[in-house]
């Protein structure tokens, strides 16, 4: 196990190193003078020179990368050109919003996706099975930004069942601690805030969970069907176990390995999807912030945001890999 761990850790380090090179290059790959591009065509020459000096853009590339890496290790991501705030502070406020949205969406997709998949597999070729498969195919082909707009229109505007923007009502005063509002509201005993936050979360999380839900349903169905054809299931049947025990206890636990991998892979899909979903629901997370940074050419902010998402994504992938090898002894070899 330690061998697997160290091998995975080394490959993570290589990936992270590569990621810093990619993120560092963002500014340097811009066509023309980066300082001029960031400040726009109407910037005064003195402002351009000042920014160039501030970001050290006039120094040799390797030196720039060295000092970039040095600052990174100290947790210094620079300041946003737009708001002059520390980028690391912005990320510590925005990332929890995205993670909360992603986590709830993942929870929805696992709950619905796995249940639908198991049901469909245990009633193979039935009406229910076809309905799940058609539903899953529809989910996979659905542009989530369109679905999000429709949910917003139907449940937000027409039926007025859910709030349409943000994480909390504008008139509610609540000082977050970790910026995971669901968590913060619970530890500070504000159940009213918890309910409001959950109410705001449902529509965006539902929109975001569609594709992963469909993928999880498909893989669960396929994995359970495959396991149901194995010899040990025949033995279990011969022993007279009920179908429920066979499917849920024997088939599902064996089928869990591929399902787990796919669930892990969904995190990236969800993080990517969150960027788009957030803009629709004005969700104050990484996506909304990153896009506004891209549109206002705030490249230091873009760099910081991309690095943070990449780091989180790589860590989750590592966790999935390790979990995977812990569950399946064959992979450890």
């Amino acid at each position, binding site marked *: 196990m330690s061998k697997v761990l160290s091998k995975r850790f080394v490959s993570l380090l290589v990936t992270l190193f590569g*990621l810093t090179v990619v993120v560092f290059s*963002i500014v340097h790959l811009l*066509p023309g003078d980066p300082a001029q591009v960031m400040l726009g065509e109407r910037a005064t020459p003195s402002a351009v020179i000042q920014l160039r000096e501030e970001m050290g853009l006039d120094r040799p590339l390797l030196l720039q990368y060295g000092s970039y890496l040095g600052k990174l290790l100290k947790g210094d991501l620079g300041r946003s050109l737009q708001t002059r705030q520390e980028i690391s502070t912005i990320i510590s406020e925005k990332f929890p919003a995205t993670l909360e949205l992603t986590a709830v969406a993942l929870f929805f997709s696992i709950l619905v996706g796995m249940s639908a998949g198991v049901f469909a597999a245990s009633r193979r070729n039935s009406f229910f099975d076809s309905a799940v498969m058609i539903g899953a*195919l529809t989910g996979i082909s659905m*542009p989530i930004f369109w679905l999000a707009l429709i949910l917003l229109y139907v449940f937000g505007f027409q039926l007025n069942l859910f709030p349409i923007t943000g994480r909390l009502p504008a008139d509610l005063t609540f000082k977050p601690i970790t910026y995971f509002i669901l968590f913060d509201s619970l530890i500070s005993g504000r159940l009213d805030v918890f309910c409001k936050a959950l109410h705001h979360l449902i529509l965006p999380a539902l929109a975001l969970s569609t594709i992963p839900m469909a993928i999880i349903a498909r893989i669960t169905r396929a994995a359970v069907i495959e396991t149901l054809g194995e010899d040990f299931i025949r033995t279990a049947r011969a022993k007279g176990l009920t179908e429920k025990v066979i499917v849920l206890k024997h088939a599902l636990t064996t089928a869990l390995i591929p399902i787990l991998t796919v669930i892990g892979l969904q995190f990236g899909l969800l993080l*990517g999807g969150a*960027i788009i979903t957030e803009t629709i629901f004005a969700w104050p997370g990484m996506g909304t912030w990153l896009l506004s940074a891209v549109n206002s050419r705030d490249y230091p902010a873009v760099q910081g945001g991309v690095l943070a998402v990449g780091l989180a*994504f*790589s860590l989750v992938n590592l966790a999935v890999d390790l979990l995977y090898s812990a569950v399946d002894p064959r992979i450890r070899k």
Partner: protein
Amino acid sequence: MIVHSLFGPEGEKLLKRFLRNKSALVGLAIVACFIATALLAALIAPHSPIEQILNDRLTPPVWLTHGNWSYPLGTDDLGRCILSRLIYGARISLMIGVFSVGASILLGLPLGLLAGYLGGWVDQVIMRIMDIMLALPAILLAIVIVAILGPDLKNAMIAIGIVNLPQYVRLMRALTLRERTKEYVQASRSIGSRPPRIMFKGILPNTLSPIIVQATMGIATAVLEAAALSFIGLGAQPPTPEWGAMLTDGKSYFIKGWWIMTWPGVAIFLTVLGFNLLGDGLRDALDPKSL
């Protein structure tokens, strides 16, 4: 008979398997309609996709009050015919699909072949670069690329091509590793064939089926990703009738004119569904074991 004489008994069996699969046929029909619409756009579109007739702005679809046959699916906030924009949009989506998947294949297959066949440091370098690309969610990497190159349709296509590259490299590498140990490759090596010949004339033709499946599904992904990029303003720019960009236009009008954002969404959904169904069907037909 024609199939038999053209592609031999294997091809005929494959076609039979494909034709028995109803959902694959539905996919094929959707894809055929989509391609025909894209190719014949200039002939079948009732209006110009960018002509603005402000007097007719926000005309509802024909079946609603105030709707008329001149604009079967209604008009947008600038009085442009939505049906015509959708029809021309098919052309843009087809172009995005073909070019970005084409770019991923053209770069991805040789890289995957080299990594799988040569192994060693070549493999290590190529696959580590792919790992780095995979360290970011696809849409974020695409946003970064477009943020560097500048937001327009061409750059969005390049971005999508690059973002999806690792999938093709990984697939081709895995297929090459499988083929490398087969007898025909060893035979070819023993008669002194050079590596490029073994890779491109020997291994590549034997790995085409999974690549065709991947490319078909890849078009679905490309259409979806391009629409997402245009939707957030980083892909096609106005007045290009791209489906994702049309959705953005409709976003601000969804109370006064729900149809503006409804039809582009339906078009994206159907196209992606069509390519997914076709891809699934092709996989089942090409690889009967997966059934």
